[in-house]
């Protein structure tokens, strides 16, 4: 924290401690015991175990210090585009930590897990309604996992119909990298198509691209330049006519909550990111949940086990269904990120239909407000009238005129206490600054951020070096990422020195 600034940073935990120091308070063995050598065989025992030797106070202080070197939603405005960094309600944490949820084994008898199955089943049902599809699964551990699952289902669908030549997945060039990677992971070939001058799918290009080899189109809607694909119905028709399926990357679902539904647009399958749209904390990288919803045509392919419900109200009984002959199989050790599902369920139940629509509307309003106020200072990617939940700026002008890049602007934002927007994504926008404010930020917060962006735009002109050398007020200054690759240092070698 501030009050500790004459400091060389936080040492590694391995640089602390002393031989023989211990933290955990463990029990003595209360059963008759034998030597590990006798029980396991000497040949099966390991040599040294080079773990830290620190006290519990060392542990608490070290990780407290590390936390203080991390930016977070709880700490400030975090307009990282495509990531939907909204407020993560504390009540979700409270419900997810109830022992009746957290202390459950996935294989305990199903009659002892009815509350858990209810959460999973009801959440799936709500997600299906929210996106206008028939069913959902919570097995995918993240968005990309959901994409992969979707591609597996597409694969199984075509195979089932004897349509095995369909080996091409069409993906716009604006798509997130996980889309092509997921398709490729399923053995599909990826065919990229360029976006049109409006940043959207070009119908003619698409029409030319689809054919009898088309397995699917993967499309993000609203797309990654923050625009709604207004031709979506026509897009889906084109693909369907060619015999392909249409997948919706639902990372941007926040913009559409209660307003419009991918299922109604013609999509066959989509993923949600519960860790974006439904407020579950992202934990510095994960966990997440990439729930997938499908139309009836794909329902038979959902991964097992699915959850079924018989009866209603207090006589409802939930069970796992593993007898699904067309299912693509299992894609997670168990049922996905259950405790994340508890959080998302808590969230949706706190909002209802009315609250979800408010979210969609305010997410869109906030993004358009930033767009309106910043358009005089930065180029806006693509010339649409309105954006949806995020606005993509380009620092191309700043780059051309002052040699200041999007990354420099981002680093300078840090000096003012903000997390930067997403940089260099989507790839089709030069010097992209992708700003997603989310609905939980107020006009006052946006105004302060906008003022700083304007200030930085003038700093770019008056003092470009200030930006190029930014950040100046962070715990470390700009890190040398090239050196990180060149001199790979992926673990603390001294720990292993003795052993060699």
């Amino acid at each position, binding site marked *: 924290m501030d009050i500790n600034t004459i400091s060389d940073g936080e040492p*590694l935990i391995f640089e602390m401690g002393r031989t023989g*120091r*211990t*933290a*955990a308070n*463990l029990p003595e063995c209360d059963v008759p015991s*034998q030597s*590990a050598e006798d029980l396991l065989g000497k040949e099966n025992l*390991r*040599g040294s175990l080079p*773990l830290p030797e*620190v006290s519990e106070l060392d*542990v608490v202080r070290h*990780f407290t210090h*590390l936390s203080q*070197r*991390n930016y977070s939603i709880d700490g400030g405005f975090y307009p990282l585009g495509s990531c939907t960094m909204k407020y993560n309600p504390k009540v979700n944490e409270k*419900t997810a930590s*109830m022992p*009746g*949820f957290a*202390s*459950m*084994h996935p294989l*305990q008898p199903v009659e002892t897990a009815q509350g858990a199955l209810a959460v999973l089943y009801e959440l799936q049902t709500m997600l299906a309604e*929210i996106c206008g599809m028939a069913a959902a699964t919570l097995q995918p*551990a*993240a968005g990309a996992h959901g994409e992969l699952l979707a591609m597996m289902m597409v694969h199984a669908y075509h195979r089932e119909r004897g349509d095995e030549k369909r080996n091409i997945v069409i993906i716009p060039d604006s798509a*997130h*990298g996980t889309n092509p*990677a997921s398709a490729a992971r399923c053995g599909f070939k990826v065919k990229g198509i360029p976006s049109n001058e409006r940043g959207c799918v070009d119908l003619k290009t698409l029409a030319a691209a689809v054919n009898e080899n088309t397995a699917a189109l993967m499309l993000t809607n609203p797309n990654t330049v923050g625009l709604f694909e*207004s031709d979506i119905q026509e897009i889906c028709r084109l693909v369907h006519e060619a015999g392909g399926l249409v997948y919706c990357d639902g990372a941007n679902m926040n913009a559409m909550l209660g*307003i419009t*539904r991918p299922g*109604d647009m013609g999509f066959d399958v989509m993923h949600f990111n519960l860790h974006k749209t439904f407020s579950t904390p992202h934990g*510095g*990288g*994960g966990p997440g949940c990439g729930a997938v919803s499908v139309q009836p045509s794909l329902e038979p392919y959902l991964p097992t086990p699915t959850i079924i419900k018989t009866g209603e109200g207090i006589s409802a009984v939930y069970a796992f269904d593993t007898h699904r002959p067309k299912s693509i199989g*299992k894609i997670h050790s*168990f049922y996905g990120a*259950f*405790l994340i599902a508890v959080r998302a369920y*808590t969230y949706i*139940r706190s909002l209802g*239909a*009315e*609250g979800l*629509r408010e979210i969609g509307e*305010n997410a*869109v*309003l906030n993004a358009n*407000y930033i767009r309106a106020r910043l358009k005089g200072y930065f180029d806006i990617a693509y010339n649409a009238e*309105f954006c949806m939940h995020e606005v993509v700026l380009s620092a191309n002008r700043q780059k051309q005129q002052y040699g200041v890049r999007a990354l420099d602007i981002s680093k300078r934002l840090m000096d003012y206490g903000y997390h930067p927007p997403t940089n260099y994504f989507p790839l089709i926008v030069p010097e992209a600054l992708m700003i997603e404010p989310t*609905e939980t*930020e*107020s*006009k006052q917060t946006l105004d302060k951020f906008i003022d700083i962006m304007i200030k930085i735009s003038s700093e770019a002109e008056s003092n470009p070096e200030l930006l190029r050398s930014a950040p100046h007020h962070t715990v470390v200054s700009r890190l040398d990422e090239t*050196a990180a*690759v060149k001199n790979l*240092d992926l673990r603390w070698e001294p720990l292993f020195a003795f052993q060699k």
Partner: protein
Amino acid sequence: MSYVSNTDTDRREMLQAIGVDSIAKLISPIPESIQLQRPLNLPPRLDEMSLVRHLHSLATLNTDLEANLCFLGAGIYDHFRPSVINALISRGEFATAYTPYQPELSQGILQAMYEYQTLICALTGMDISNSSMYDAATGLAEAALMACDHSDRSEVMVLSSVNPHYRQVIATYLQATGYTLVETPEDVDADTAATIKSLINSNTACVIFQQPNFLGTVENMGEIVEITHSAGALAISAVDPISLGLLKTPGECDVDIVVGEGQSLGNPMGFGGPLLGFFACKKQFIRSFPGRIVGATTDQQGRRGYTMTLRTREQDIRREKATSNICTNEALLALAATIYLCELGKTGLRKIADLCLQKSHYACNALSVIPGVSVLISSKPYFKEFVLRLPKDPSEVNRELLNYHIVGGLPLGAYYPACQDCMLFCVTETKTKSDIDLLVSSLSLILGGP
């Protein structure tokens, strides 16, 4: 209240600044025909008090394993979780951050991940570790794909003694690719070495085995690796990280890729998720392994700092040529594992492992003298799980154990047809002698003993 911060006045002012008179205008790019003309059909919203009560009532429908004894294992384990872990990972600075794309603002999680990678290497004896996968099952599937991609061989051999849940996921992953899954016969008594030898060939990309295996048995890891390597295939091992408090490391046995379930390392069982797949391998795979990795570097002033590195393997840069499609991973669970391993430390992890060893042996010995009960595999060492044959239907036994506030072991019939009368028990350090004695006496009663 929908966690929306704007007031009506805010909205009015913002619309004015945008130059429109309604939010409807802003969403006009959405064709009217697909605008939803009705409210979503969802249960009514709940205020915070009602919400907590509602969730509490659902939670109460579950048998919670803090208040009941659990002898289930099979991949998810009821291990001790020191209280420091929750106190630290719940800090908003960790919990509410995104992936550390901007390293200068994310030194906390980045340094923690660097420490995590170091600890996983220390635990497994491997050269490099990524900073997490979704779970052990998908980690193994990715390892299998990586082995195939790496070798231009197309067969993945998986031993039947690998956790069946993992095997199912590997099968799913391979299905959509051109690669073939070769599963060894489900014979619990089989000679592992002989089985592998009989099936391995020049098209075998890798052999996947588990240590200790799904039935609790400690495999001869060195031998498996040797046979695998001599056929030019990669040895991929699933490991129980707690067992590595005592057992020889995969690194010492020359394993190529190690994957494991990190739930045991300080994370809640959580009905099976979220989980933590750890993934470590030999240095030679440095350009081909999946997942994020953090490296140390320096800032402009030469101070040490951390950043994600080797990013050109990843989907956001490499797209369809990426080594994996993974993006969001399990960072917070990896953080918990990091804290766990620091809190336990050199002597603590060994002690936990030894407690598992001693208690499972005490339990196995005591249970197996109940009339009609016998040990399935008595010739090989085991760590914390073991299989018993019961003289009564295992699911029925479990139903009756619930009356004693005991959640019994796993009936194996669904996984191994030859094991209809078998149950897989797990005994960790969380069970006291009297817990075990209670299990023994309850089971005796259920089986009609004295």
